[in-house]
């Protein structure tokens, strides 16, 4: 959270672009990371991240400070945008093309990042989880958000988040074990 975040948001709500710029600088990396892990393509992650912040800027007056943190609001926009992205993509791509296309996207992403093979395995395994479990893994274990914050973002109770967290890790581990044994 930014120092004086409440004041900055209030000024951004009054139309001060510079203040929204501060919010952008502070949150853009984590939102980008969240989107990139879910879509596995740098260019598309950049476009989606741009859209998330554009939407946030245009609708900042709808953000109510007393409800939940600004970051949660941004994650909600990002989550919905990624859902829309996959919905549109599904309509535009035939089932046969999906596997190949996905493979190509993942390969490009891998080359660009040039990371260890373990990281690639984990990243690919995350994309095999269902949407909710992906969100939990990214928010809890990569972005290090608290259970309370995740509950606010995902609109679930803290107990449900803890359960999902356990199941997500268990499933991720199963996927990785299966990958290793192949």
């Amino acid at each position, binding site marked *: 959270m930014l120092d004086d975040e409440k004041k900055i948001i209030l000024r951004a*709500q*009054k*139309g001060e*672009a*510079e203040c*929204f*710029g501060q919010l*952008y*600088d502070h949150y*853009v*990396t984590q939102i*980008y*990371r969240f989107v*990139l*892990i879910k879509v596995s393509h*740098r260019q598309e992650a*950049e476009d989606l*991240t*741009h859209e998330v*912040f*554009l939407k946030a*800027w*245009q609708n*900042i*007056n*709808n953000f*109510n400070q*007393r409800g939940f943190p600004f970051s949660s609001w941004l994650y909600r926009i990002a989550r919905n945008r990624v859902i829309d992205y996959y919905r549109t993509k599904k309509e535009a791509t035939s089932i046969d093309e999906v596997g190949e296309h996905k493979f190509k996207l993942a390969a490009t992403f891998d080359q660009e*990042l040039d*990371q*260890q093979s*373990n*990281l690639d*395995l*984990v*990243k690919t395994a995350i994309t095999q989880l269902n949407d909710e479990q992906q969100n939990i*893994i990214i928010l809890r*274990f*990569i*972005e290090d958000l608290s259970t309370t914050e995740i509950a606010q973002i995902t609109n679930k109770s803290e*107990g449900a988040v*803890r*359960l999902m*967290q*356990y*199941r997500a*890790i*268990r499933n*991720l*581990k199963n996927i*990785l*074990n299966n990958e*290793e044994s192949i």
Partner: protein
Amino acid sequence: MKNLFKNLEDLRGINPDPDFLHRSKTEILATYQTHSSTSFRISQFKNRLVEGLSFAAALGLTSLLLYLTISGLSGSSSTVITQQDKTQFDIQLRDAKYYKEVAPNVYVVVLNENMEEEEFQEELNKLLGK
């Protein structure tokens, strides 16, 4: 994959391209802001109105509950208690049937509900290889 936690942490190293950040931020901030000071005031008023209504609704509900509790106490309590016992017994039977059917998942539920935060974290760490 022994240390899953470390691998997940390493994914924090993903960063956006600085050129993209500069381009995106400049474009967004140059976008015409649809809100004006009037719409800001309207939105603030809307927020306050929603909060006011929520408070009124909470107050109303509390009064209603209080009324029901007080009026319930003065009624015939023995009939109510018998009915309640029967309902609870029915619920317990239904619970037992449900848990039998979902036995494989019960472990996780039990973990969540009966464990202290530390114990739950410990169980999670085992999975994470921490």
